[in-house]
């Protein structure tokens, strides 16, 4: 019949069409004002009424079918075009990204300080600072190290004149802290200290941490627990692999040193730990009564716990570093490898 022929013809005409303008042209030919179909529809009014209805129905059916055909083809055309756009400009995702500025870094010692501040800050320790150029009355005498004490011999101190020196330990801040406050108190101080020594494990300037708690009822067991908990957290361990052994400092009595199990040899003995299986980490003890008195605190009413450790030592153990001097060489590539982490 004429109508199916029309549909077939339209299908055949559409087949090669793949652009929208061509499609529009084709649609105009079959469905437009001058198309055969439209003219047939218009010619309906010339037909006698009995024939009109039948012809109209057939023509409208054809028109609807054609319109459907064209719409479907258009949809397909759009999809094809979209598809082409998707495959056309494929981005090579493996090319380097745009980088307006490379990421810098925070110094590993600063990162250690931030972690420590987070931990002890949460325990209520006030952060204190003290002068770096000190009087020997504070650096030694107030810390129970009188003139004749052999510990003065061993400290390799830098002097400016007979009395002024670069502090050899952060314990000086204990004295300043105690004098500025009434007991009870919890203090912490971190900062540079200076000793005349230079090797793979020693630099003439390094950083120390000092912690001090003063309260009427403190004992050595508290100190042991405090340090055990801290070290376990710092090294991300369930339980800190440490040992707590007696030692001597002029400003604490009893005194202790804490060793960490050597991470290189797991306690078997190696060069890193001088064959002992342990690495010395920190010193601590109960504040000597003379030091409490020098800080204006009565030893009869209060007890103090104090602990100090080297931050470079901590950083070296945490990051498995072998040469402390690199921390002061400030090579950018080395520094960058530490990133900005403070957790």
């Amino acid at each position, binding site marked *: 019949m004429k109508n199916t022929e029309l549909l077939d013809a339209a299908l055949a005409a559409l087949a090669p069409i793949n652009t929208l303008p061509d499609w529009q042209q084709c649609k105009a030919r079959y469905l437009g004002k001058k198309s055969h179909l439209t003219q047939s529809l218009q010619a309906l009014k010339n037909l006698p009424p009995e024939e009109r209805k039948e012809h109209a129905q057939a023509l409208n059916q054809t028109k609807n079918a054609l319109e459907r055909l064209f719409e479907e083809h258009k949809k397909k055309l759009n999809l094809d075009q979209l598809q082409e756009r998707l495959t056309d400009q494929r981005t090579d995702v493996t090319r380097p990204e745009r980088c307006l500025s490379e990421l810098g870094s925070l110094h590993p010692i600063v990162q250690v300080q931030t972690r420590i501040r987070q931990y002890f800050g949460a325990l*209520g320790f006030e952060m204190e600072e003290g002068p770096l150029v000190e009087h020997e009355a504070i650096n030694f005498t107030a810390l129970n190290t009188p003139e004749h004490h052999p510990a003065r011999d061993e400290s390799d101190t830098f002097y400016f004149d007979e009395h002024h020196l670069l502090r050899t330990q952060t314990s000086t801040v204990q004295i300043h802290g105690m004098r500025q406050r009434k007991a009870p108190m919890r203090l912490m101080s971190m900062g540079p200290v200076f000793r005349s020594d230079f090797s793979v494990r020693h630099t003439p300037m390094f950083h120390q941490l000092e912690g001090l708690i003063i309260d009427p009822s403190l004992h050595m067991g508290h100190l042991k627990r405090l340090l055990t908990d801290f070290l376990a957290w710092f090294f991300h361990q369930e339980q800190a692999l440490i040992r707590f052994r007696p030692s001597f400092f002029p400003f604490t009595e009893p005194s202790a040193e804490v060793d960490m199990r050597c991470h290189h040899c797991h306690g078997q003995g190696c060069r890193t730990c001088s064959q002992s299986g342990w690495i010395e980490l920190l010193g601590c003890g109960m504040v000597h009564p003379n030091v409490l008195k020098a800080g204006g605190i009565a030893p009869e009413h209060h007890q103090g716990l104090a602990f100090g450790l080297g931050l470079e030592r901590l950083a070296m153990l945490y990051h498995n570093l072998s040469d402390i001097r690199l921390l002061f060489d400030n090579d950018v590539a080395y520094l960058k490898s530490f990133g900005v982490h403070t957790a």
Partner: protein
Amino acid sequence: MRYPVSWLLDWIAISDIPLPELAERLVFAGFELESLHEGPLDEALLDLKVTANRGDALSMLGLARDIAALYDRPCHDKLPEARTPTGVCPVALEASCCPVFHAALITLPEPAKRNPDWLVRRLTQAGMLSVHPMVDLLNHMMLGCGQPMHAYDADRIQGTLCVRESQEGELFETLQGQTLTLRAGHCVVADEVGVLALGGVIGGARAAVRPESTRILLEAAHFTPESIATTRRYNLHTEAAFRFARGVDPSLPGPALSAVLDQCQALHQAVCHAISVSGRVDPPTPLLLPHSAPQRYLGYAPDHHRVHTLFERLGAQVHNLSDHWHITPPSHRMDWQEEVDLIEEIARLIGYEHLPEEAPCLPMLPAPPSRQQLHIDQLQHHMAAQGFSQSIHYHFVDREQETFWGSLSHALAVRNPISEDKAVMRTQLLGSLLRTMVAHHNRQQHDVRLFELGTCYQGPQLPPTETQHWAFVMVGSRHPVQWGLPECALDFFDAKGVVTQIADVLRVPVSWEGLPEPAMTEQPPLWHPQHSAVVRHTTTQKPLGTVGALHPHWVQVLGLKAAPWLFEGSLAPWCVPQHAGIVVPERSPCMTRDLALWVPRTCAYAALQAAVTNEAPEWLKEVRLFDVFDSKNAPEGMIGMAVRLSAQAKERTLEDKDVDAMVAAVLQRLAKLGVVLRR
């Protein structure tokens, strides 16, 4: 100190204890293990580091006492009684630094007769050199019981011996051949001619024993730690000085001398002609230790009987009273001065593993981070985010650096620096940063961004003023080399951008001005006068720092290819807390107008911006410079600039005529500066 096991056995029975176990036990009693040598009896030894408070442990007897207390067994205190004085051998004591002096005069029938092999071997094992048979004998006794002693050739002593204070300028030649000019106040052993020995430290060459010496004067005396301390300046590190500095038992000279005389008689058939004793020592003061003290300090209460036995084994006299112990320290424990010293003995001998690990119960007092610290954290983070690596340099620097870029007259000099390049305390940070940058340059590393926060020291007074500074250096390309972006070197505005970013983060309002004319000085300043600026706090006008290029003179001297960009300022003014200015969002649309202008080169952008914004309606929100270009077509002395004006009114939509009027007014004001619209 080395403790050969075979020698220790003289003083305490320890053959049943495996050496590693003994070493471990001693470590947990307060000694540090330097090394351990197992093996046959004549080779086995312990090398222990003894802490400065345990002078008493620097001998076989001393360590044996500790082992006795640790293992609850007796030690053989084998020293004989002090001999009674006899004959004539007077020694006058004229100084408090030497409270007691025992002397004995002996003759040797066979001068320099060799000591038996076992004695020489022991000394070698213990790490001491063999010197002279008499000296070796004394050293052997020193290592054995702890009393340092000295031998003089009695034939070279003129007149009577005395112990007195040295006089200023006295000369003294040590037996090591060093001649010292003594200060006043040292403790010296002297005869009528002069100084024979520096008491407790070292003997002199004049009366040193020689192979041919037959008459020997033996000295066993006590010298106080204070008197040893005065001789520190001479750097004489002797075994005797080491022990006296840490405290020797003041009642030891008599028994030690007696033991040595016994040995001289037995081994060398020496004849003793005279013994003298001068001075005396007070017995130790008893201490009271409350029964409640261990619980108070250690957190646990050991068995009373155990505490009693422990102190007895250590040599103390103990009386157990109703609520405390009455403890008389043995004369060798000079480190027992008060209650806490006794507590330490209990703690270390019973064992630190018994300390109860309990969390302390403390009042909940606030300790939030300080605002200053929060500001510092922000500054550090945002510098890192802008590509800078944080450095930490030594606080002591070389003099040259301070001369060039700091202020040498204000830089404190270290009296005993570790090296010449660390001789003075820094007054500024940039010097060290520059040096490190040069080191990178020499390694072909040309893209460097470093920043630092740290203390600077301003002298010359002591103590100096310590101020925290912060500083950065940057050199190289604006961006890392990459496809899609042209390579571009850093310029002033990159450095300005870094500082502005920090100012924004810390909410510090900053304003910028060029450097003043530099003073005519001998050497060029740090900063390039044309490409540097002073940063000021807009409100207080306080200087916040200086930013700019390194002066070309220094670029050349340091051998750099391109001028690095630098900043340094004091940290405190950056860390003042500020309030945020909160902006309420507007609903009305924002309109923009771009103005293309010719601007006289002499006109600073700040002046142009001020002319636009001053007297402008408050709905003129922003003026942004988005283009600057030089052109051949520019009028004489002019440079092309383009600014974008953004206008947004509260609660109403601006009409074109409002904006047009505003722009016309702006152009009128700009005309006064010589700024004209570009056609």
